[in-house]
């Protein structure tokens, strides 16, 4: 939590690279936590968790104690992660079935989950499973369970879409994954707190290469600053 003591805008003169962003997310995860990393961008956080942190990774398809990718000659098709990518088991790992895996989430046993997002609202609503475009084949997987189940759900994303639209919005326009479930957004240009407890105003925690005012202009939203 030491990063939170740094005043908004005081750190970083440029937007974060993807690796820097992953490291920034990792820095806020407490030693000893049980953590689920969503598929896509959040997967990269694993590379930045200190080996001695005692952090245990959960993967929804039934493994606690997930390790990194195996050497090519040690790939086991029956040992994969939620993205269906080969992984390894660490000492102390445990396997379990799907009902147990999702009970761990809904039951509040997972301390942190890091999710990707298409949109997040000021009140912490999350949209990350459907672009809503006609003809798209829908798929939801474990996103809805994770978003509402973990003790703390945070989002890791680029703050703007490829065509420059903000992904932090007043109200989500895409189909929701969960209501009021996200508490913090980690993005390339800012860390921003959101959620139902904030009385309708997102709060800038830290900015990277942009001023508070520039960020508000980028988002078309007012942002409170600092810790409340």
């Amino acid at each position: 939590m030491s990063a939170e003591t740094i005043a908004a805008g005081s750190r970083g003169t440029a937007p974060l690279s993807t690796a820097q962003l992953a490291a920034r997310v990792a820095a806020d995860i407490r030693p000893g936590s049980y953590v689920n990393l969503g598929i896509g961008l959040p997967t990269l956080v694993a590379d930045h968790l200190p080996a001695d942190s005692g952090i245990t990774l959960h993967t929804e398809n039934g493994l606690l104690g997930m390790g990194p990718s195996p050497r090519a000659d040690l790939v086991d098709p029956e040992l994969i992660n939620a993205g269906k990518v080969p992984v390894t088991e660490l000492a102390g790992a445990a396997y379990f079935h799907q009902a147990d895996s999702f009970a761990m989430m809904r039951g509040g046993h997972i301390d942190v989950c890091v999710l990707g997002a298409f949109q997040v609202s000021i009140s912490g609503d999350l949209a990350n499973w459907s672009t809503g475009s006609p003809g798209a084949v829908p798929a939801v997987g474990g996103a809805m369970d994770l978003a509402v189940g973990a003790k703390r759900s945070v989002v890791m994303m680029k703050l703007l879409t490829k065509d420059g639209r903000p992904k932090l919005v007043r109200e989500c326009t895409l189909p929701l994954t969960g209501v009021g479930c996200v508490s913090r957004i980690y993005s390339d240009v800012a860390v921003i707190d959101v959620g139902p407890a904030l009385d309708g105003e997102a709060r800038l925690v830290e900015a990277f290469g942009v001023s508070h005012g520039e960020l508000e202009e980028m988002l078309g939203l007012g942002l409170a600053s600092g810790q409340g």
Partner: protein
Amino acid sequence: MTVQLARTALDAVGDVADGSTVMIGGFGPAGQPVELIEALLAQGAGDLVVVSNNAGNGEDALARLIHLGRVRRIVCSFPRQVDSWHFDEAYRAGRIELELVPQGNLAERIRAAGAGLGGFFTPTGFGTPLAEGKETRVVDGVPMVFESPIHADLALVKAFQADGAGNLVYRKTARNFGPVMATAARRTVAQVTEVVPVGAIDPETVVTPGIYVDAVVEIDGATTLAGAQPAQRGAAS
């Protein structure tokens, strides 16, 4: 009830009626009972309702089952894959119904069926399109959605070992949906890498007790598909 130790996948799958609901284990390729699905293809039943986390990859057996129009409806959490072209095509053409279910709800609805429960209230999906029209209730201050059990006529699962009593042990993340699906179907068929004698599996390590398993077939690499050829139908009683 004794467990059928089937000689071939086709014998293990047995007669499947048109219109049956079939649960198929697996998360992606891990735990997918490929040879049992091949046998279902060969067996010929159609108008099926399939309950499965995914909707087939590439030209695999589930994808072909869909491509051949044998699946009327699929209950699924993540049908879209980079190589799910057969499902995508059938879905866009309106040739297959999709009930999209959050993955944890899918697992728990199957578990509820196996445990004889009438459903459950869950926070998952509240306020989202996947909960539209469903009963809601606030429990201990948390808004929840009612989800109903999912039963099946047949469950096809893959495990690592079975003994002659039908007890199953799984392997790594191939366990996934097998243990819950095995409980929720009127008939459960397991394909395993190895059938071992009764007593050879430590009772402390059994994951699926034999009470849930009706038939077991050992699938041994290269010989696996032999039993799924249509020409051999009826060859064994």
